[in-house]
């Protein structure tokens, strides 16, 4: 890329950021996300990981079901572990799984969508049949089967979410590629001698990337919620903390009955707020992308 092009790209990025900054919903979403990202990254500084170990917790002399007034900041659970530690360390898993699963989804979905959309014909047909096959796989039975065969782990969850979510991304991307393929500037590129790889790289991708980004940003909260669901149903990694797991344990061990609100509210709140943050960011990106593209003379 020439220096001119780089300068122009920087200017465009600056402009997009400027527009993003002006959007209240976008900034709120970004702010919230930044806070949680910091919490996740700074987990070792915020909470002792040993507090997740029930043996350690007992040794520390923690009470069971202690309220936040007795054991700040968020009390303890049924086996004396600090809820705050679970919240902080759980954020890591939830965010990591959400992002990693989304990366897998978007990667597989985009590649297949672009290839199918651009090639058309029989290749497109074959790929679409494969996509449909994966589309109908229900994620829960798959997770149960894999977990029972391979044992429960975070990677299983990431894999399950990725494998079952990529089809919808693929279809969306393919539809957009079909539209872009018809545009006159693709004809122009072909008449200049461009081969398929050039057209995909220079014309299809740039006009599809906005859609992929917006789709990805909205796929992250879905992945987080799916992870929560799987953990809540007991398919999560038993050794690591996650918000879904916290909710499961709270539910199973009667936190609702005991009115131990400090046990389940933080995790639930965390999920809600992170999902909302991603949704706000995704919406703002979509709004920015659309008027820019339609601002033609």
């Amino acid at each position, binding site marked *: 890329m*020439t220096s001119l*092009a780089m300068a122009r790209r920087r200017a465009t990025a600056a402009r997009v950021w400027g527009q993003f900054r002006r959007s209240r919903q976008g900034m709120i979403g970004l702010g919230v996300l930044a806070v949680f990202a910091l919490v996740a990254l700074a987990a070792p500084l915020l909470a002792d990981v040993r507090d997740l170990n029930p043996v350690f917790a007992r040794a520390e002399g923690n009470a069971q079901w202690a309220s936040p007034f007795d054991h700040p900041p968020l009390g303890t659970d049924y086996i004396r572990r600090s809820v705050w530690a679970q919240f902080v360390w759980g954020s890591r898993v939830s965010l990591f799984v959400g992002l990693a699963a989304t990366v897998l989804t978007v990667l597989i979905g985009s590649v297949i969508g672009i290839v199918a959309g651009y090639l058309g014909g029989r290749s497109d047909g074959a790929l679409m049949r494969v996509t449909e096959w994966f589309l109908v796989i229900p994620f829960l039975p798959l997770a149960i089967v894999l977990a029972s065969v391979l044992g429960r782990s975070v990677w299983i969850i990431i894999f399950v979410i990725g494998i079952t979510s990529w089809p919808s991304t693929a279809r969306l991307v393919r539809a957009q590629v079909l539209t872009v393929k018809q545009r006159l500037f693709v*004809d122009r590129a072909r*008449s200049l001698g461009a081969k398929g790889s050039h057209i995909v790289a220079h014309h299809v991708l740039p006009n599809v990337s906005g859609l992929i980004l917006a789709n990805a940003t909205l796929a992250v909260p879905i992945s987080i919620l799916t992870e929560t669901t799987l953990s809540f149903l007991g398919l999560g990694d038993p050794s690591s903390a996650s918000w879904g797991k916290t909710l499961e344990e709270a539910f199973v061990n009667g936190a609702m009955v005991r009115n131990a609100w400090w046990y389940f509210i933080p995790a639930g709140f965390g999920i809600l707020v992170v999902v909302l943050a991603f949704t706000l960011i995704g919406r703002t990106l979509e709004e920015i992308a659309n008027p820019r593209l339609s601002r033609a*003379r």
Partner: protein
Amino acid sequence: MHPGVTPLVEVDDVHVHFGRSRAVDGASLRMFAGEVLALVGESGSGKTTLIRAIQGLQRTTAGAIRLEGRPMNATTRRAVQTLFSDPAVQMVFQDPTGALNPRQTIYEIVAEGLRIGRHGKDEREKVAEALSRAGLRPPERFLTMYPHEISGGQRQRVVIAGAMVMEPRLLLADEPVASLDASIRGEILALMRRLVDETGLAILVVTHDLGLAWNIADRVAVMYLGRIVETGPTEAILSDPKHPYTRALLSVVPETREMEQQILIGEIPDSARIPGGCRFHPRCPLLQSGTLPPEVAARCPTDDPGPVAGDLAAGAACWAVPPG
């Protein structure tokens, strides 16, 4: 006009069929360096399909297209791919806004052809020169702009610059000014004419606008339902057309008032249902006038006059027009 000189472009009895629809049904043309040929016709005549076949964006079903003697047309998809890399033929599109990728800068758009063909040396100079030649001065002002920041006329100049940077021998222009404001058409047409005079380029302009042909074309070829029905020098064709279809077209152009209007009935038939005999005969005012000698009138519905050879000599595919 050009005796003994090899034609730059030869279109020989080209057919482009889509199933039963015969969009181009035996069209033949010749073009020489340094001239502008206007391919005139209405929608449904096959002119856009033909020009796309010459560019290589469309497979031909039969016939040959040659550029400086080299075969240019493709009957298979793979052959089409190898043709594209020939920079000698470039295209200017009807919709300059659609022809430019909104996410590319003007520089990238004009340089694209060079980058694809890896003619990378002096890329920046070549791009600046092409923009300048196309009337966008100073070129530096435009390099980092995006298509939506310039006007429609300027966008078309960018398309032309992008084509000229490849140093083509032949430029195919599909209605190059139809979607531009009338007052700025003259400049774009003057630019095209200037490029021909300065570089020896040949331009094949597809248009429905006879006024445009009058403005810049050396020769005119009239297309009807997949065939060229008349061809010849512009002055001859537009002042004294021989083929009844050309006569009718010329008579309804608002800018010509000397002729009595001959408004044809109905529209161009579907290319999947081409009339037998002379394909124009159901709408031919000459045939309907009853003034033709009976032996000629009898041939029209049954005998196909065949495609015009597309020579330099004026030719019209009509039984009522004596050959030569």
